[in-house]
Each structure stands twice: as C-alpha cells, then as structure tokens.
C-alpha cells in the first residue's frame, strides 16, 4: 500500500466509523459493477468452477439478485474479505478501502433484500436458564433469599455477547450433578423458612387431609409456576408418583414432597424455556404464557409473576396497550435490577472488573475497600436502572447531569456533595464535576485500563466497541499488537503512539482508536481526575481522522453525542440480542432499523426502546417451518 492509498483509506475508515450519512454518500458510488470487478480481479482465479475451494463458485453470481438470494454464502464472503482472511496471504488483495466498500456493499445489498418483504421472526431456539436466571427463578419460585445458582458453572456468551444466548447455553455432565444438588439445597432451605414454606408448600396433611391430597395440592400449584404454563393432569400424576414412592419407603411428608419437587426443578420443562413449536409454514404469535415468559426473562431475568400469568390466562397480554402498561410496571419493580445488572455488565464488559481485570493492589489499594468496590461496580448498573425506571432519555448514557453515588464513591470522585449515604442513591452532579454519562464512571475507566496504568488504546477501543458499535478489525497478520510499555528511549506515551501510527497499516485503525482514548487521559486507572501523570501534564487533546478536534472528556462526550445515531443503533442491536437470547440474523437488523426510527422520533426515551423491542416481530412471533416468511402486514404490530 503506498502512502497516498493509505491516507485515502484512512478517510474512508474514518467515515465508516463516524458518519453514517457521509458514509452512505461515499458508498453509493460502489455498486454491483464494482463488486463484480473486485471479485473478478481477486477471487475468480481460485473460486470458479466445480472444483473451487470451499465449493464456492463465485462466477455463478452474475446479477445483484443472485447475490441477494444467497445471504448465507455472501455473509461469509463479506466477513472473510472484511477480516482480511481472503484473498489468502501471498495473493494479490484489494486495499483496505476497497475491502471495506465491498463488505459494506454486500451488507447493504443483503439487508435491503431481507427487509423488502416485511419482517420475519427469525429462529426461536430452546433456551436453557443460565446461571443467574436459574438463581432468580428459584428465588421467586420458593421465595427464598439464597443464591441457589452459586455452585453452577458460569455460562459463556454467544450472539451479541450475552450469556443468555441459546446457542452457547450448552450442558455438560457437571451441570446435571449441580442441578440435582442445587435443587435439593434450595428446597431444604425453603422448607425451614416459614415465609418460604407458605409460598410453595401450600398443602400439608392434617386431620381432614390425606398426605396424598396434600401432595396433590402442592404439585397442582407448583408445577404451573415451575413450568411457566398450566400443567397437564398427567404431569401432576407423574410427579405424584415420585411422592408416593418416597412415602412407600416410609419417608416423612416433607421428605416425600421435597423429593418430588426436586425432580420438578431438574426437569427440562423447568430448566429450559420451552415454546410450543410452530408447525405451520408461516409465523405464529406467541401464546400468552410464552409471551409472559419472554417478557419476564427479558426485564427481570426471572419467571413471570401472578399479574403476568393472569393476563396470559385471560389472553390479554398480547394487546399492545396492556403490554405497554406491564412494561412500565416491570421496569419500576426491584426485579428490574437483574436486567440492568446482566445487560449492563456484559454490554460494557464491566463484569470482568475484579475478574480478569484487577487494578494493581499495590498501586491502587483504594479499590480494595469493599464499599468502594461495590459502589464502583453498581454505579453503571443502577444508573441504567434509574434511566429505565424514570423513562429518561437514553442519551444520558453518553452524558448526564446525575449519577448514582455512595458517600465513599463521592469522596473517591473528589465531589463535595452533602447528603450522600452508605447506600447508593441518585445524586445531581455539580458544574465541572467531570462526571456524567458512562464515560465518567470508574467501572468503565478501570475495565479499559491495564492493572497498573491507563491506556489510550484500550479506552479508545472500548468506546468504539461498547459505545459506537464499530469495533476495529483485528490487527493484520504478522503485525504485533501495539505495545505501549516503556522502551529504553525516554519518550511520552503520546510520542510512542504517534510513531506507531507512522506505519500506515497500524494507522488505518489506530488513527480512530487512540485519539478517543487520549480524550479520557485525565482519568486515572480508578477514574479519578488528574492533571498530571508521572509529573508530566496530561495532554487530553485528540483529533479524529475526519478532522474533528477536541480536548478532554467534556468535549469528547459532545463529539459522541453528535454521533448519537451510531450509539443508539449499537445499544438497540445489543439489547435486541439480549431480549431474544440469541445472535441476531440479517432480518433482525430490519427490526433494529425500525426501533431506531421510533427512538429518533421519540426523543430517545428508555421506554420507547423497551416497548418497541417487546412489540417487535421477532419478540412476539415464532417462525414457521418456512423460516423467513414475514409476518403478514395486517398482523404486524404497527
């Protein structure tokens, strides 16, 4: 790549990252003919004919329609070209700019083809309760305050990056053993607590009630709650069989009924969220119980409560206005904390703080105060929950006039605020606090730092990924990742990073990564304000590839607010992946587009986001056997 080329590609990359509108203008000039020419120049040498590698004969695709008709193949082509995996090393390859234009063209082509026919629901895979859902569900089912999931293995993430994604919720033999133990422990614990007993042991034998009758009563109440749907009489009968077998070996009533209930809690009907498969060709609306379940696991990470179940039983929950009411109720419920915690910590990656990413205890002992640590961890979570509950604008996440503080966290930030307590609470920020929005929070600033020092590269990358949803591509092969550590030469970090950016290959991405990070250099590893580092004054100036200049976090936040479109789209994409518990498909991005439009019109209110998500086709419908068939227009929610 010569200098000229690379500088031009920088401009395009910059546009890609920051200006969707300008991007569209630049890209409109890339058409099918350009794509075909690129394929001919770089791909057809190998990918032609019957013996083409990966059985991929690209010569077959002679029109735009043939490409749009094979989204699976072309998504793969797009990813491999975009990530620099194709053409293979040593073969002539398009410049970075052309790669990007080609990839965006494929994406645009496939997407507009997918959205043209209306929206189809996409897959609805069987979802196992993950570890936190398991714990919350047992808590609500038995009314116990005991983490029944503590011994379960942690779940990995898939799809949009959440551990509720069906695809990565696999089972291994360890799970079976742990589920058996966890159920036993939770039930034993519950049976000893009168409040909890009253919740699930609703029948007990006495002078007028035979043990068998009492057990039936318990199971008839318990099974529908555990399975999140009405139980069939034969199901009650089968679990009653377990109770009787325990009675037959002279177990006590408690011992016998707990034995049967333990089986309920190990049953796949409890551990999986089962939806009745749709055997019709076209999509079907979810039944009331299914919708109640999706809704409660989305907003509470737990089972539906009685009001939801009642609405489901009356077949009213599907009505948009009732759904909207329920959403507002649910977001104000304390159980919404579970949603905020699960969503925010995985979206922002702050869950890794204290796990893989730990501030150095020798350099940052302040972090190891339990109260400080907890306040740091919960600040973004409770902040998000507050935005949801109060229906604030989602742009508060970029910048806000309030945050959630405890007295110790306020002191940590150097804020002179009165009235802060040990318990976290909303606090209005004074002028010049440097706080407000996620970028002023220690959790975010620490998770994007090294244990012993800050890194403009890590913070820049974090903003591109978590806020703007435009993660930089991986470093090209054989280019070692940038290392910012001190070398022998006594240069500043900024000098070293600038030197690194002289290499055009590195510059193509680091020109958009590093400046953002420099804008946050006034925050130390623990997010405290500083004006110098190692006796050098902090230089927090940054210049984006498109020429935008800024200095310090306040101006950086203004720059990000000017790009709110990218942020809102990213947040919507992430949340839809979380709401659906799976990776998004091409068609789901049509849903994202619609929701983003509604948010643009609705002042970015939090409730708009949640409501549109719940009312969306993929959330309320199940695909039929002909996956990809759209929901008929008359049935579509709006």
């Amino acid at each position, binding site marked *: 790549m010569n200098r000229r080329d690379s500088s031009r590609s920088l401009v395009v990359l910059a546009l890609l990252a920051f200006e969707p509108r300008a991007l569209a203008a630049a890209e409109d000039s890339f058409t099918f003919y350009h794509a075909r020419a690129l394929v001919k120049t770089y791909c057809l040498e190998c990918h032609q004919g019957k013996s083409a590698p990966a059985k991929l004969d690209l010569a077959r695709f002679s029109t735009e329609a043939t490409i749009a008709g094979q989204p699976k193949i072309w998504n793969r082509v797009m990813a491999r070209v975009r990530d620099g995996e194709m053409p293979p090393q040593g073969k002539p390859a398009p410049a970075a700019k052309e790669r990007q234009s080609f990839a965006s063209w494929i994406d645009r082509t496939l997407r507009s083809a997918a959205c043209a026919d209306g929206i189809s629901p996409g897959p609805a895979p069987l979802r196992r309760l993950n570890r936190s859902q398991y714990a919350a569900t047992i808590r609500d089912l038995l009314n116990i305050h005991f983490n029944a999931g503590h011994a379960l293995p942690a779940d990995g993430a898939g799809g949009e990056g959440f551990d509720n994604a069906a695809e990565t919720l696999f089972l291994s033999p360890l799970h079976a053993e742990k589920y058996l133990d966890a159920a036993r422990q939770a039930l034993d614990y519950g049976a000893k607590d009168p409040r909890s007993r009253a919740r699930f042991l609703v029948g007990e034998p006495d002078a007028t009630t035979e043990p068998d009758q009492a057990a039936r009563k318990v199971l008839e109440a318990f099974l529908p709650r555990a399975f999140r749907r009405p139980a069939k009489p034969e199901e009650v009968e089968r679990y009653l069989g377990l109770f009787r077998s325990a009675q037959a070996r002279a177990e006590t009533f408690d011992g016998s009924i707990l034995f049967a209930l333990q089986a309920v809690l190990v049953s796949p009907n409890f551990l999986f969220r089962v939806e009745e498969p749709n055997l019709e060709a076209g999509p079907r609306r979810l039944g009331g119980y299914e919708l109640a379940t999706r809704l409660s696991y989305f907003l509470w990470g737990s089972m539906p409560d009685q009001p939801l179940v009642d609405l489901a039983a009356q077949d009213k929950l599907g009505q948009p206005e009732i759904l909207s009411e329920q959403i507002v109720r649910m977001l104000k419920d304390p159980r919404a904390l579970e949603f905020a915690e699960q969503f925010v910590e995985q979206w922002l990656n702050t869950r890794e703080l204290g796990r893989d990413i730990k501030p150095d205890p020798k350099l940052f002992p302040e972090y190891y105060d339990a109260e400080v640590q907890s306040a740091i961890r919960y600040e973004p979570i409770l902040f998000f929950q507050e935005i949801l509950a109060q229906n604030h604008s989602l742009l508060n996440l970029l910048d806000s006039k309030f945050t959630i503080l405890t007295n110790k966290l306020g002191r940590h930030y150097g804020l002179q605020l009165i009235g802060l307590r040990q318990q976290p609470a909303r606090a209005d920020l004074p002028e010049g606090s440097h706080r407000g929005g996620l970028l002023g929070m220690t959790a975010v600033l620490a998770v994007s730092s090294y244990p012993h020092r800050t890194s403009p590269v890590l913070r820049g990358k974090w903003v591109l990924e978590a806020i703007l949803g435009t993660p930089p591509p991986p470093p090209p092969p054989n280019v*070692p990742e940038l290392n910012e550590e001190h070398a022998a030469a006594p240069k500043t970090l900024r000098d070293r990073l600038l030197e690194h950016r002289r290499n055009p290959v590195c510059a193509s991405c680091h020109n958009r990564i590093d400046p953002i990070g420099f804008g946050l250099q006034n925050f130390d590893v623990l997010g405290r304000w500083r004006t110098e580092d190692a006796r050098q004054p902090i230089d927090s100036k940054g210049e984006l590839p498109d020429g935008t200049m800024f200095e310090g976090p306040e101006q950086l936040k203004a720059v990000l607010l000017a790009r709110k479109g990218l942020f809102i789209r990213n947040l919507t994409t992430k949340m839809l992946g979380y709401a659906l518990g799976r990776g998004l498909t091409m068609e789901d991005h049509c849903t994202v587009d619609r929701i983003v439009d509604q948010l643009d019109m609705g002042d970015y209110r939090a409730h708009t986001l949640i409501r549109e998500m719940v009312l969306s086709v993929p959330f309320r419908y199940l695909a039929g056997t002909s996956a990809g068939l759209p929901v008929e227009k008359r049935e579509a929610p709006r």
Partner: protein
Amino acid sequence: MTKSGLPISRRTVLRGAGAALGLPWLEAMAPRPALAASTEARLPVRMAVLYMPNGVHPEMWTPQGEGRDFPLSPTLEPLGDLKNELLVLTNLWNQGSKGGEGHYVKIAGFLTCTTVTKTMGVDIHCNGISMDQVAAQGVGKQTPLPSLELAIAPVSTGVDKNVGYTRVYGGHIAWNGPTPLAREINPRLVFERLFRSSRPQADSAKQDKLLLDRVLEDARQLRKRLGASDRRRVDEYLSVVRSLEQRMERAGRPEQASWKPRQPIDPETQPPGIPTGHTEHVRLMLDMIALAFRTDTTRIATFMFGNEVSNQNFSFLEGVKGGHHNISHHERKEDMMRQYQLINRWHIEQYAYLLGKLRQSQEGDGSVLDNSMVLFGAGIRDGNRHDPHNLPILLAGRGGGRLAAGQHLAYSPDTPLANLYVSMLEAFGTPVDRFADSTGRLPGVLG
C-alpha cells in the same frame, strides 16, 4: 494394543524391586492374556493436563542439548529435582490451530488438534474430541468421576467481535462433543464434589436414580414435540442426565466397581473458597487434582491456568508489572521479555508443585507420580507471534512405568502434537489408531 494397556517396563520393576516384589500389581509384567484378568489389581495410571495461556519466551524455554544429558533451560529451572521424571518435547506443532486467529483457535484445539468452527456461538463446534476425553471414555467408568475439569477464571464475558469468536472457545480445552465440558473454579466446591462422589451412598443413589428416570421421561416427551435443532439440546440433556444416572448406578453397587479408594478423603482437609492470591488459588486447585488422583476419585484431570488472552495481573511477582497478555506482546523489548519469562517460570513452579505433591504420595513401592503423566503446555509458542509451531510441551511422571522420562527429545520441525497424544493414550491404556492429524506414535516417549 489391548485396552488393558502396556506391560510396565522392566526398569520400573528394577527401580522398585527392593521392597515390593510380592505386590499383586506386578502381575502387569505377565503376558497379555493374563494381564486382562488382573486389570483391577494393577495400580491405575492417571493423566493430567495443565494449560498455560499466552505462550512462552522462546529463547528461555528450550534446553540446550538432547537426550538424557541436558541442562534445564532458565524457564524450566524450577523442575531441577524432577528432571528425571520429565520429558521435554521440542518441535511439536498443532496444525489444526494454524489458521483462524491468535488465541481462541489455539486453546480450544489444544487437546483436539482440530480447527474449531469460527462463530460467535450459533454453530459452536470443536470438530473433534479432546485427548483427555478419549481417555475418559476408556476408563472413566472405573472411578467415581470420569474426569475433572478445573480452571481459575470463569469463562470470559462476551464475544470477541474483533476476531469473530465467542469467548467460550478461549475458556475450554476439554471437549467431548461439539460443545465443551464445563469446569469448576472454586476449590471448596471441587472438594465437596470429590468427597461426596468418593463416598457413594447406595440408598440415596437409588432414589436419585428414580428421580432421574422421571425427568428423563419428561425429556423424551419434550423431544417428540420439538423441531430438529432443539432436539439437539434435549439430546444433550438426555445424555448428561443419563451419564449421571449411570454414575449413580455404579455408585449404588460399589462391590461391582473396580474402583477401591486407597485413601479416604478426610473431610477435615476441606479447603476454603476462592482465595484472593493467584498463587494460592492455583495451588488449591492443583491440590484437588493431587487429592483426586491419590484417592482414585478420578484418573483424568485438565486444568487451565487462565482463559486464553488472560490479562491476569502478575505484579505480585518481584520484577513484574502488568497483565499477562499485555506482557506476552513483548515486541522483543528486553525488559518485557524478562517479565514474560518470569511469568512463564512462575507457571513452571506451579507445575513443579503439583509434581512434587504427586511424588510425595506413596503408592505401591513408588509414588502417584510414577503412575501419572502430567502434560504441561501452551497453544502458541511466542506470545508475540501467536504461532503454533514448536509448542512448549512437557510431560512428567512415568505413566506406570510406560514413559521414558528424563529426556529432552527434539523432533524434526512440525511433528504433529497429535502423535504425542497417540503415545499418551497408548500409555494410558486407551490406545487409538489415529488421533486428528497424527501420523503415528511419538518416538522415544514410551519406555
């Protein structure tokens, strides 16, 4: 080779000849037909794998000199008094993990020698069974637990959008199907599990079996209603519940199990939960492997020092400042390489700790280490380059006399790592004709 394994070598016998000639396990020296009948009398062979993320300082790893007479390299120095129990294996590579990206493909395929499917989750697949699980399929039924999967960090949060992989790949080396085996990170929970499994209660096992029958029936009914892709999940459920049920069955009939605990687990030795110090945590987990092996609660264990790309802070080591992954990108800067080597060396110290523990446990006329093979390795060589050539691989213990320990064996470049696994499986008594890209046994490993 028969399932009963190789006869133990003459050298082992000679080494222990002083005291133990009358022991029944010496029947292993008998011709093969007799051997099969006496399997239970022989001391079992154990296999552990310790996985280290982020590679090694390439120049400080490989010892100078080959064969039996070689000085240990600076990184391997902590193995000083274990040198005779050690095989240093040079120039092995893992072809399956060549492409893809720098980390996830390397770790997930470390014991499978396959190329995992690139995915954010939908089609997660390792495309092979890991070597330890092949062994577990062979002998797992002879112990209360077929195998033990341990780690230090929970599986990492999220997916890696930069490279297009779910981080599930970066957190697992043991695979017995398309999806991995979950692992445990809390030493206290591991202890409780070992303790409980080692003391089967016939009564409760019988009831548990009744309960599992009930839920298996639920699963079968559910399966009938579902579409093909969801059936796969229910099949997974059926298979894990059945495997538990079978374990209960075996536990319910202790007299029929070949397993006899040599030493009961003392409940007083229960460790605490996860300690704050990294070294303490690692050692407690390694203690659990030693305990499981000593008591024959399982014969197979895998352990991950960290998830791949781990940025574990190693500042607790004198002279180190920073996170593991960051330092592994040393860019050949002297100071960074020095720190990198110190981190590598710390890992070797922990390896030596486990080997020492196994050696302290008397068994027959030798030690548990004599009857173990403990693999130590990483999925890349130099963290700065992410390449799967000339991987850092050690194997320690004598595998019941089947391993020719005490050597540095250097092969021709790019000898398949899978060949080592073929040899290990043979020594373990669960031989295979082929493993992934293997081309045969690894010469010199078996005694």
